[in-house]
């Protein structure tokens, strides 16, 4: 559901000069099937089987083992500019992320 929201506004992220990456702990075969079923144009990345990225970004949940629903907005210098956490509101992730990348795009470069 959350990925469907990102899919629907993928063009807006492109216009704002941002790259969307979906990350889950699913192994490749299910990721591929999911990407195909959804028709997403951005990469769906697999953090399976080591879950190092989910752990590094503090979204790892041990039991049951899965990643929490968190979206990070990272600027082109590698600094986190937005953290969106919601398990229940699926639309807030793409909506807030898009607002933040648009704000970033308007900042003068230095």
């Amino acid at each position: 559901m959350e990925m469907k929201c990102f899919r629907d506004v993928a063009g807006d992220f492109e216009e704002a000069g941002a790259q969307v990456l979906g990350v889950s702990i699913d192994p490749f075969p299910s990721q591929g099937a999911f990407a195909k079923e959804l028709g997403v144009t951005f990469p769906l990345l697999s953090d399976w089987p080591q879950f190092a990225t989910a752990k590094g970004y503090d979204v790892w949940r041990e039991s049951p083992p899965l990643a929490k629903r968190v979206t990070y907005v990272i600027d082109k210098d590698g600094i986190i500019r937005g953290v969106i956490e919601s398990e229940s509101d699926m639309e807030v992730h793409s909506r807030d992320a898009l607002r933040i990348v648009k704000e970033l795009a308007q900042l003068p470069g230095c």
Partner: protein
Amino acid sequence: MPLKVGDIAPDFTLMDSTRNRVSLADFKGEKAVVMAFYVLAFTPG
């Protein structure tokens, strides 16, 4: 607690569904990156 605004994003290298490697470093200086962690694909994710 998840990372906070202002923190340096940890680098990562992961594979996409066609087994291409994607790293945060690929986009450095080029593009902002939106990293969306989502729950298992075939749950209502």
